[in-house]
């Protein structure tokens, strides 16, 4: 068996069986993509910090009387959202150089937070639901792009943001009562039931959107309980 032994020690010739060039180009590709991720991550970190400021401002809605909402919450919130819009523009410019769906997991959650803040701000301001197109105009980025590989806000981002907004409003309903605003829960109840009706139209699969949608019914029930408590005690203000 001397031949077998020699076989295992034979040196590689001019055409190597395992070409080192394969692995050096693999490493170069890995390093390149790590650089891209770092570049995008830096911008998203800025957006994330700004998002926390915006959410901190919006959190004051739970202990601010409705009459003072404009000056105490809505104005500083609009300022913070404007700063976020500028960062989103920077992110859009950087991210549009690369395949959208390869990297969108980096910014997805933070973009959803921006959209949710916009939705909540607009509802508090005028009782309206900002549309996907309006979000795009406000942030100066395209939405629901299908034929061009560029940064955009997806339908899923908008819908997931909407579930966060509904969750926040369901928390606001009892807090509004605590602050003496007995009309607010009824407005919230109508709005989230309308949104929930819209969600019922969707044929959702078993993914994150479905899980978020399944949680909506608990928010609807929570606000319905508040409205029930108020109506039971005759506290809902009558229309003049």
């Amino acid at each position, binding site marked *: 068996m001397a031949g*077998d032994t020699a076989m295992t020690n034979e040196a590689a010739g001019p*055409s190597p069986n395992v070409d080192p060039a394969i*692995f050096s180009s693999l490493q170069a590709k890995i390093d390149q993509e790590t650089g891209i991720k770092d570049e995008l991550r830096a911008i998203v970190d800025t957006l994330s910090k700004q998002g926390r400021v915006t959410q901190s401002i919006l959190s004051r809605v739970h202990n601010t009387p409705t009459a003072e909402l404009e000056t105490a919450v809505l104005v500083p919130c609009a300022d913070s959202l404007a700063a976020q819009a500028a960062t989103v523009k920077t992110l859009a410019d950087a991210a549009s150089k690369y395949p959208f769906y390869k990297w969108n997991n980096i910014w997805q959650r933070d973009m959803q937070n921006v959209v949710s803040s916009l939705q909540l701000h607009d509802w508090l301001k005028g009782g309206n639901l900002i549309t996907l197109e309006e979000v795009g105009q406000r942030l100066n980025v395209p939405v629901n792009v299908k034929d061009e590989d560029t940064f955009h806000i997806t339908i899923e981002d908008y819908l997931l943001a909407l579930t966060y907004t509904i969750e926040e409003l369901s928390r606001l309903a009892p807090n509004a009562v605590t602050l003496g605003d007995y009309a607010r829960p009824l407005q919230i109840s109508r709005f989230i039931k309308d949104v929930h009706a819209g969600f019922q139209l969707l044929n959702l699969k078993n993914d994150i959107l479905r899980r978020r949608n399944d949680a909506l019914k608990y928010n609807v029930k929570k606000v319905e309980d508040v409205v029930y408590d108020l109506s039971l005690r005759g506290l809902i203000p009558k229309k003049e």
Partner: protein
Amino acid sequence: MAGMKRKPEDMANEPAATPEETKSPFLHIFETFRAELDAHHDRRENITKASRDVTAQSKLPGSHDEYRVRELGKPIHPSISKTTTPMYTTIRNLLQSVVPDLQSINTYRYRDRITGGIQEYIEAVSFQHYLETQRIMSFHEAAAQLPEGIMLTYEDYALGLFDMTGELMRFAITYMATNGKLPTYSGDDKSSKSSILTDMQDLRAAFEGVNPGKVYPLAKEFESKLKTTRQSVEKVENGVYQMIVRGKERPKGWRPDTDTRGGGESEAVESY
């Protein structure tokens, strides 16, 4: 008349409440969303199904016929390729069928759905390439094996190559068990070729030199794949050692008698 039942006409007189249902102002918006999401789900399901079928094809028992290859450096023998070639054709057709769903912005959107199938395919074609040339298939050679419109990422290539080391291990062990030695190379540049064991050791060393970085999915799976590759190499190392040491006890030319009909038939089956 305490027990008297209520008459049907009494029930008919009970007033039925019919509260007016207010239509949601957002239904139109959500109808648009529904159409978009349904199209998205359909594409995803098509790709998932194709990927599973590709994986199933790659794992058919017939694919193991390649373990019967007797020499490296030659085209696959017809008795084996008649089984494997139709499998590759089926796989290419499956991948071709989802090309329209993977274009433009959607190239990466469904990557997590197609990646399993592509890795299986890369594993299969790179294993066959090794059997025919005793050389590791390069990234560009692997990409050329996929239908036009299906993109090969370096992650799928690397992970497929990791899995191929498992195939090499099974081939080497099977070959040693059947033939009592490692496979020989019979190509034109015979003198320059090392053994399959050396190749596996080189592959392991090359992978150990790679820093997977932080980008999903390679960073996530790299460590576990490398561990498995190390185990595969060690199995072959141990197998060669046992073959050399314990093989001394075996009479020259002896073969395991696996055919229940007798030694003579076994000889016939083994030859080409």
